[in-house]
């Protein structure tokens, strides 16, 4: 207690010294806010324009948005900078890094606390439940600022569907029907009809949420660091075994880790793909055929399916400068004002329409819908509708995932999938091995983060 007071006093003194040492700050030179992001072009440029819009709207703060490599590089850069007492004010963190950031409580300032401290107001009640849930504490307070959220959907080649005698306007709803369609597509001359991007996110995480089965104990890890993987269950085993069998049959092609398979549909090599809703922009640009967007398939004999899908993408975290704190009130205020700017309905709506990421709020969605945007951009509303599938009421299994070391666990599952697709193991062994290796990661994370 005494130590904390002393520390606060020290911070107060340094702040006072800094303000005194920089009289220019009081006289109107803007407060610099460093914002590190991990978006490549063209999305990165759009993000920098959002920051530029904020800078033009007022004179007190200046947000410098800079690209620091992909999501994982940005994460590593921010952590290294924090250790060197030079962290950015704001860092964009991919959704799987959420648990890591949350566990490092002295490194970040949760958004709820930031808003309380600075008196800035953002209404989170209206934010899409699936987005809000992913980035909030178990009691509902926001930990980070949702920014670019995506979900995943099916994209398919309508021309190929016509050629195979399938109805191009009705994408099959269930997995068995998708397999049937793939067989017809193969018969019509498409060598490997179906593929997937983000194998773990799509075929394990999304699949579990949609079918209302747990990915991990403790409510997918929301309830504590002592969660264990629960992926070794019959529903998931059945689906992965199907994928392995379809791979053998030539209906499904493993296109590589993460987003490596993104190019297969636009190149015309596959007729069906499951990918991030953000892939829309690329397909729009590259595909030279008629294509469609549909919701992810499910097994209709699983009782509660289909529920809402979960999100991917990233959120923004307010960071301390280093292990000893070191941010002035003015800097925190600037961060909060910038977050509030991002939540403004017109800023958020423009971001959604330009990029294809999910709209932040429900009312924002209604507003864009009323403007007729989705009539001109058919399929752009499928991701949002899918987020609201199952009535928009989240269960413990469909609100998201919060596991420490989750990037590593994702890779472990991808590696075990690769073993299975090479014919070295079946779905049961895949899930057993992934569970065993994944739990080691969880235990290590738990140990390293226990005070």
């Amino acid at each position, binding site marked *: 207690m005494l130590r904390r007071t002393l520390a606060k006093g020290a911070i107060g003194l340094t702040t006072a010294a800094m303000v005194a040492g920089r009289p220019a700050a009081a006289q109107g030179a803007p407060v610099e806010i460093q914002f590190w992001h991990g978006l490549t072009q063209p999305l990165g440029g759009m993000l920098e324009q959002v920051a530029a819009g904020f800078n033009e709207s007022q004179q007190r703060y200046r947000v410098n948005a800079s690209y620091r490599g992909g999501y*994982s590089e940005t994460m*590593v850069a921010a*952590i290294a900078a*924090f*250790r060197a007492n030079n962290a950015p004010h704001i860092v964009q963190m991919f959704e799987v890094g959420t648990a*890591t950031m949350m*566990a*490092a409580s*002295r*490194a970040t300032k949760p958004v709820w606390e930031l808003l309380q401290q600075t008196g800035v107001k953002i209404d989170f009640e209206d934010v899409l439940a699936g987005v809000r849930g992913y980035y909030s504490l178990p009691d509902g307070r926001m930990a980070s600022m949702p920014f670019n959220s995506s979900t995943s959907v099916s994209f398919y080649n309508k021309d190929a569907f016509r050629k195979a005698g399938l109805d191009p306007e009705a994408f099959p709803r269930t997995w068995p029907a998708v397999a049937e369609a793939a067989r017809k597509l193969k018969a019509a001359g498409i060598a490997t009809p179906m593929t997937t991007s983000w194998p773990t996110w799509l075929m394990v995480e999304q699949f579990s949420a949609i079918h209302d089965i747990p990915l991990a104990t403790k409510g997918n890890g929301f309830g504590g660091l002592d969660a264990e993987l629960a992926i070794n269950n019959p529903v998931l085993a059945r689906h992965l075994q199907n994928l392995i069998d379809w791979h053998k049959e030539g209906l499904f092609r*493993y*296109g*590589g*880790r993460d987003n*490596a398979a993104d*190019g*297969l549909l636009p*190149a015309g*090599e596959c007729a069906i793909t499951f990918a991030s809703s953000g892939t829309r922009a690329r397909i729009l640009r590259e595909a030279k055929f008629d294509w469609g967007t549909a919701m992810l398939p499910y097994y209709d004999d699983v009782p509660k399916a289909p529920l809402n899908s979960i999100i991917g993408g990233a959120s923004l975290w307010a960071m301390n400068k280093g*292990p000893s704190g070191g941010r002035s009130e003015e800097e925190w205020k600037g961060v909060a004002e910038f977050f509030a700017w991002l939540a403004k309905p017109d800023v958020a709506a423009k971001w959604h329409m330009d990029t294809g990421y999910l709209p932040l709020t429900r009312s924002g969605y209604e507003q864009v819908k009323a403007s007729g945007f989705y009539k001109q951009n058919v399929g752009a509303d499928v991701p949002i509708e899918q987020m609201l599938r199952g009535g928009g009421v989240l269960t413990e299994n469909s609100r998201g995932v919060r596991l420490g*070391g989750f*990037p*590593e666990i994702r*890779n472990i599952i*991808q*590696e*075990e999938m*690769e*073993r299975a*697709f*090479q014919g*070295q193991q079946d779905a049961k062994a895949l899930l057993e091995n992934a569970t065993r290796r994944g739990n080691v*990661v969880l235990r*290590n994370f738990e*140990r*390293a*983060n*226990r*005070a």
Partner: protein
Amino acid sequence: MRKAVIFKGKLLPLLLMLPQLVITGIFFFWPAGQAIWSSLLREDAFGLNRSFVGLENFAEVVADPTWRDAAANTALFSFSVAVLALAAALLLAVQADKAIRGSGAYKTLLIWPYAVAPAIAAVLWLFLFHPQIGLIGRALNAAQLAWDYRLNGGQAMTLVIIASAWKQVSYNFIFFLAGLQSIPRAVLEAASIDGARPMRRFWTIIFPLLSPTSFFLLTVNLVYAFFDTFGVIHALTQGGPAKATETLIYKVYVDGVENLNLGASAAQSVILMAIVIAVTAAQFRLIERKVHY
């Protein structure tokens, strides 16, 4: 009896050595010390919680089956890269050393790949062997040979070996060429007069006289395959599929930078450091004596 030359005074020699000592200290001893220290700790990514765990990280690394797999991969990978790069370079050097028209141009062209950065070399090979966009990759698939290094571990390993070896051939080529040119013509001519045919001349004269060069290159190639091939693996396979091309150095990166498991990563790099020290010591102590100079 040898007479040792002894300089008086300590200041000047120390002063002259200082730049080198400072550089070694900052760029080797300090980070190496840090690595040893972190290998004894268990901490979270941000360095907020840390506890001393002794040698526990080492015990975990050695007991980890994925680390053992990586060690086996490294052995196979390094050996293959070294043999392939040395054999190809020797063949090319012997051919380029002959009196042929335009040998200068050949020599220049053969040295070029050395100037290519490992990651760029990998991208060049990717353009050749990618199953969808690669020239050769497409041809293989069109010929009904199922080529997909992203899913077939054996193919992935073959590809990173070839790409890494190709990168090193130029370096070996320069040294072999220099070695060949330092072999006295008179010896070769004498052998010719005695009736030795080219193959026999090569195996009985050229090859033994090249052994110091070969031995030096073997060490350099092994170290190259151990440490400098990170860029090739990172750009081509990221250690996949299913860890089939994950070498020890790549695993250090994956565990430390991607998985933010600093203690385990530091322990692995300390083990690597011990391996390199052992290899270098063995080179000087044991093998170098047996090489014919």
